[in-house]
């Protein structure tokens, strides 16, 4: 079974990047801070024992994780001692053992890497929240329509009453729909209430038209 070592990426200037102790265990010098991924895949040192004697402190600093190579892909989240790390890059040397570099962005929430961009262009899709541009544009359109409706009432006649009536009820429907979209998470229940609300508002629209236009 092919094995892969996952290590936190941090290289000190006076130390070699990685050195091999055994065929499946890879030790390295690491720390908790973040750094960009190395420009080239690290190569194992020919003499593991010599490196270990040169820098004996590096064994206690080891944070390596050994996982099956076929289970790892770019974008996966891996839990390591209560912290979540995201796989940013995979190295697959010819000799059969693979390595991956993990990075925790500085601005991310502790314990969870939210968004990371890799050189492969694989980006995590953000949730379409209410503050995104599309939703804001739709809300602005509604507010403009309602402003037009209030301006229409300056000219008291049948047509201004009809248009103002329509725009106000449209605004009511969109506003309540947005509230339901935020708080009612079951889609069938939300659709049921939205259809009932639409029928109710259509009847109310008709009643207001009859009472104000055909007075």
């Amino acid at each position, binding site marked *: 079974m092919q094995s892969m070592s996952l290590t936190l990426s941090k290289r000190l200037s006076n130390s070699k990047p990685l050195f091999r102790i055994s065929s499946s265990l890879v030790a390295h010098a690491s720390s908790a801070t973040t750094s960009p991924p190395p420009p080239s895949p690290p190569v194992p040192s020919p003499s593991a024992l010599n490196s270990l004697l040169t820098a004996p402190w590096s064994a206690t600093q080891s944070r390596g994780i050994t996982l099956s190579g076929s289970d790892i892909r770019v974008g996966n989240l891996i839990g390591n001692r209560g912290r979540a790390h995201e796989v940013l890059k995979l190295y697959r040397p010819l000799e059969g053992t693979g390595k991956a570099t993990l990075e925790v962005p500085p601005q991310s929430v502790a314990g969870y890497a939210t968004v990371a961009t890799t050189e492969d262009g694989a980006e995590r899709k953000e949730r379409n929240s209410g503050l995104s541009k599309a939703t804001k544009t739709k809300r602005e359109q509604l507010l403009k329509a309602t402003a037009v409706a209030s301006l229409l009432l300056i000219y*008291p006649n049948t047509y201004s009453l009809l248009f103002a009536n329509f725009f106000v009820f449209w605004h009511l429907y969109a506003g309540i729909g947005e509230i339901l979209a935020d708080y*009612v998470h*079951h889609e*069938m*229940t939300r659709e*049921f*209430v939205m259809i*009932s*609300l639409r*029928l*109710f508002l259509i*009847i*109310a629209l008709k009643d207001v038209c*009859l*009472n*104000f236009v055909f*007075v």
Partner: protein
Amino acid sequence: MADNTQSYWEGYKAFWSERFSFLSNYSRFINRDKPIPSWSSSDVEEFIASDPVHGPVLKSAREAVQFGLTGSALGALFTAGYAWKYSKSLHGAGLSFLAGGIFGWTFGHEIANHTLQLYRVDTLAAEAKFLDWWNKKTGGY
């Protein structure tokens, strides 16, 4: 120009006063020193039997209330049951009960509006006529 502006605002006020004229139908029965005596269903039935014009209209209006009550009950129970079935949320079921009741009343009253053809008559005038009849009958001023 001043005459045009003045006539515009006079027309504006007249227009909107006409739209809200239905608010004055009950004013002479509400703004009183002594309230109107209470009436019962038998008094309403007596008025329906005695008035050939407004009696049938009031009868239809009272039947429409039954449609509204039935629709309200069905709407409230069905909507709250549907929401409770999928969410098991107490406040959600409560709000669905209220919304379903309002929607159900509106749908029921709409069915009554078409079934009893209430759109052809003025139910508000019939109710005001009944209040006037009851006021005279009880010796009011």
